[in-house]
């Protein structure tokens, strides 16, 4: 275990703290009953390389059903690499990735995705040569247990802006709309876990707020989420659990309020 701050991964009851963390604690308390014990992802001892650069140094990372996790760390600390390793887009040299209890370390990315994992990549992942409708419909499929909670109508209901632009080409959308389309498309696959890599990056504050409220809705629907975002406060307010990476190692894993309450840790790990 490389967990330097070896906190148990389950959400802890909120403790007394300063004024600033009131909001985050309220959210934590509200969601405490949510996560079950079923592990969607269980990664252990991941060592990932890009050529000779050693990016991940024995990372352990797990996601339970219905859980919201904030994955944090400054630029270049290995967040995206970790996500890509989980999805099989990058292969770890050592370690194991289990998805729903099955070893999928060497499985094809599409097979991993089909076990209920949806990935919203950094930078907008739309298909510019397809219309909004085509982008969504193409991805439609039932969830792992045959669920079809999220269909075209529900996605359009959640993202009314997309409904107004159904026949527009993906490239004709604004940045915020493109991000909504990417999230909407991910939901069309009826995932159990939604991974959001920098979903609000480069968006106007008002649009970013809209995205955050949508993420909240998704979370409330019982889909587990892993959120990577520069807006640490927003992430911690939403997440049951926070994981911090520094130079490819997990330096903190535990209750979000534990981190947000601790100015010293925040400064040391995240520079804020």
């Amino acid at each position, binding site marked *: 275990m490389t967990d330097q701050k070896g906190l148990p991964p389950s959400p802890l009851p909120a403790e007394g703290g300063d004024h600033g963390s009131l909001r985050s604690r309220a959210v934590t308390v509200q969601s405490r009953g949510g996560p079950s014990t079923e592990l969607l992802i269980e990664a252990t001892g991941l060592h990932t390389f890009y050529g000779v650069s050693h990016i991940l140094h024995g990372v352990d990372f797990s996601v339970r059903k219905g859980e919201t996790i904030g994955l944090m760390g400054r630029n270049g600390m290995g967040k995206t690499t970790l996500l890509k390793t989980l*999805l099989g*887009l990058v292969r770890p040299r050592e370690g194991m990735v289990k998805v729903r209890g099955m070893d999928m370390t060497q499985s*094809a*990315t*599409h*097979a991993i*995705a*089909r076990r209920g994992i*949806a*990935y919203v*990549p950094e930078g907008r*992942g739309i*298909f*510019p*040569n*397809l219309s909004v409708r*085509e982008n969504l*419909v*193409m*991805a439609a*499929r039932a969830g792992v247990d045959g669920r079809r909670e999220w269909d075209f109508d529900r996605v359009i209901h959640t993202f009314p802006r997309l409904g107004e632009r159904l026949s*527009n*080409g993906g*490239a*004709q959308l604004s940045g915020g709309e493109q991000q909504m389309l990417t999230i909407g*498309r*991910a939901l069309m*696959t009826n995932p159990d876990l939604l991974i959001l890599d920098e979903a609000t990056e480069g968006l106007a504050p008002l649009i970013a707020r809209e995205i955050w409220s949508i993420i909240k809705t998704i979370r409330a629907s019982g889909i587990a989420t892993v959120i990577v975002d520069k807006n640490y406060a927003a992430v911690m307010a939403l997440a049951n659990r926070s994981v911090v990476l520094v130079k490819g190692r997990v330096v903190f894993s535990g209750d979000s309020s534990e981190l947000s309450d601790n100015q010293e840790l925040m400064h040391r790990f995240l520079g804020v």
Partner: protein
Amino acid sequence: MKDSRLTQYLPYLVVGLLALFPLVESTFYMQLLTKVLILAIFAMSLDLLVGYTGLVSFGHAAYFGLAGYALALMAPKYETVSLWWSLPASIGVCALFALITGTLVLRTRGIYFIMVTLAFAQMLFFIFHDTKLGGGSDGIYIYAKPLMKLGEIEVANLEKLEHFYWLVLILTGATYLLLHRILGSTFGRALLGIKVNEHRMRALGFPVFKYQLASFTLSGALAGLAGYMAAVQYGFVNPEILSWHQSGAVLMMVILGGMGTLYGSVIGAFAFVLLQEVLSNQAWFGIAAKHWQLAMGIFIMLVALYMPQGLAGLAQKFRRKPAEEAADE
């Protein structure tokens, strides 16, 4: 849109006029048009790969030529062969060859994909060129056109130019409709997605390789359909039909017409053959006609530079409203 009715009916009008063509012209131009339509099928099959799947093949003539050889080798020498089994069998051979080569070439990307597809085509070229299998560099003659009989009734007599022409016209239309249908389905959308970003499609849970292989195999099979018809039209096959010149020519038709539009490939085939005929016309261009390839090369370069969307893009430009154009930027 004002012109939507025109655009809607234009294809039917064109097909209707083409169907009536044998009534006004009997030999040379009908044969030329038959050749164009066969090349249109060939070009559409390549557009499926280049324009929709994002795979630039430089060895597509392999499947075109292989079907011709399949027919020539399967047909008894001085007897007629039935089209009902020889056509599916030839297409099947091509599909199988595409399936096998596809599993290998699809492991490469970009420039390597171009090179490996070329390599497979060249291998086939030399197999037929340097062995007695297909009559070496002389090729094989197909003395009789395939029979189209249902019981005792002759559906069409392919010895008659107009019958063959109509058959090819029907097959061109059928190929267009088939591809149009397939590309409008989820499968087609997935191919377009793969063209833009393979990783993204994998992360969405799409088995990219299988989709590409399906596209590659279908493309090879349709190229086989075109090759079979070409072999029937000329009455012989030789290694030239699967040479890299042929692969280059069909790629030029697709680029000239406009990639990823399907009908662009049909326009491209027309434009390519027409240009070839015009530029090599000695009465018009005298001594320069001999070097028509030079003029053709310049023309293709101009198209690539100033009309990257090809002739189909030119047509779209006139059709679209300026506002749409601005939004596209």
